């Protein structure tokens, strides 16, 4: 594996090996060892052309725990805001000797473009491209589900997951549907018809418009953020109505299965898709998702950045 661009590119075995690696790395960082020398001398650039808090910080923490050098590069305050193209930015990073670029960009396919081009030789990690994919988020979600519910299995066979909310604008959902179904889970999307994308029938999942009919039968309820900044049209009458039909509140949570968990990729709109009581309840694993994110991203960096020199050397 050289790049991580999309869940569609990786096999079930590769996904499981990343999760297993993350599991061991989590144990290492839980213990006495906070810093590992594994990626000493490697440079990782966080190229964030779109706002992000947790993904950028998470990749930064992961890289630093593995002793890599991290350069943060955000569109605001850089030459990107002066109109520099992705190509020129990439060539600048290449000239500085970046071993890996973690890219977040509002254009779908931007990570693929960067990887396919000859602009730079390092690894490319997609940290969210437009409404396309967010593979590291899906891996950390799968890791969290596996930790809580798989009963020692390496995959997610037999579990069922509802992903609820703004499916249309969500890259998290695309990566998650692919990964969770690849790992054997049954995925149901729940959303108002206006927020379900065209072509969803070709995805490996089912679609429901009735949250209350789905919630008693699933092991995981993953809420999605209503992405108001991407909404250029009217998708639902008002926030109160959305909340009533598709929000997760304490009453709705009572109908969940006893061992089931509540997830949210963040950032949350408390009171819109999820109520504060649910977000802070014992069922919620939302802050644990953030913790697991660091371990999973350490695993991704480990898998992509070791063994690379031989590969480029033989080319």
């Amino acid at each position: 594996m050289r790049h991580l661009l999309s869940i569609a590119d990786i096999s079930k075995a590769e996904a499981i090996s990343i999760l297993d690696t993350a599991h061991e790395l989590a144990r290492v960082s839980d213990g006495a060892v906070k810093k590992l020398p594994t990626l000493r001398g490697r440079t990782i650039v966080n190229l964030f052309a779109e706002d992000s808090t947790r993904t950028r910080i998470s990749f930064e923490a992961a890289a630093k725990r593995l002793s890599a050098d991290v350069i943060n590069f955000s569109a605001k305050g850089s030459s990107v805001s002066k109109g520099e193209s992705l190509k020129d930015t990439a060539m600048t990073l290449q000239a500085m000797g970046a071993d890996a670029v973690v890219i977040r960009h509002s254009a779908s396919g931007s990570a693929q473009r960067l990887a396919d081009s000859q602009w730079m030789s390092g690894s490319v990690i997609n940290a969210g491209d437009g409404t396309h994919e967010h593979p590291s988020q899906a891996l950390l979600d799968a890791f969290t589900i596996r930790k809580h519910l798989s009963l020692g299995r390496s995959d997610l066979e037999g579990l069922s997951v509802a992903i609820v909310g703004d499916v249309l604008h969500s890259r998290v959902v695309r990566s998650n549907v692919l990964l969770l179904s690849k790992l054997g889970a049954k995925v149901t999307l729940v959303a108002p018809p206006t927020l379900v994308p065209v072509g969803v029938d070709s995805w490996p999942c089912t679609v429901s418009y009735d949250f209350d009919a789905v919630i008693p039968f699933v092991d995981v309820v993953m809420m999605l953020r209503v992405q108001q900044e991407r909404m250029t049209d009217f998708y639902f009458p008002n926030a109160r109505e959305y909340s009533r039909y598709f929000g997760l509140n304490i009453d709705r949570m009572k109908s969940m299965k006893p061992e089931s968990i509540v997830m949210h990729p963040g950032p949350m709109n408390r009171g819109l898709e999820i109520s504060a009581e649910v977000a802070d309840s014992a069922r919620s694993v939302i802050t644990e998702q953030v913790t697991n994110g660091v371990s999973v991203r350490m695993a991704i960096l480990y898998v992509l950045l070791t063994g690379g020199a031989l590969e480029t050397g033989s080319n």
Partner: protein
Amino acid sequence: MSVALSAADIKRALTRISHEILEKNQGASTIVLLGIPTRGAHLAQRIAAIISEIEGSEVPHGTLDITLFRDDLRLRAPKAIMPTTIPQSGIEGRDVILVDDVLFSGRTIRSALDALGEIGRPRTVQLATLVDRGHRELPIKADFVGKNLPTSKTQSVRVLLGEIDGRDEVSIEGVEQ
């Protein structure tokens, strides 16, 4: 392929190593055995069992994975990370005995010393290995050796252990040059 150690030879070697460890450390009260996965971990467990039989008390033992501390990570395909389990007693001020199956270049042990340094400061670190096949690339020497096997660099030493391979045997593969 020639067999260098039979199951009985391995058993005798491990028993002798266990006695030597006890002799050198004047008993088992301060020692911690840490095996390097995969086969070193099983050997550490066996030595711990032999020592507790001799001494009549449990010996703390665990595993120490060194994958993340290797110096050739850039050159090789990523290896799976194995579990590291440090016994409850910790290693601070203890006599740590590292256990591995084959001692060759010495680079694994260098990595293990780095890994130990991240966990604590043992009083001493000693090394036990089932086979020493020579060809060191670093100034590292074993304290307890099951058998010295002179080999050429083109040969390879294969260690089989009952726990994972179904039987105990050490063999040398390839021709001497």
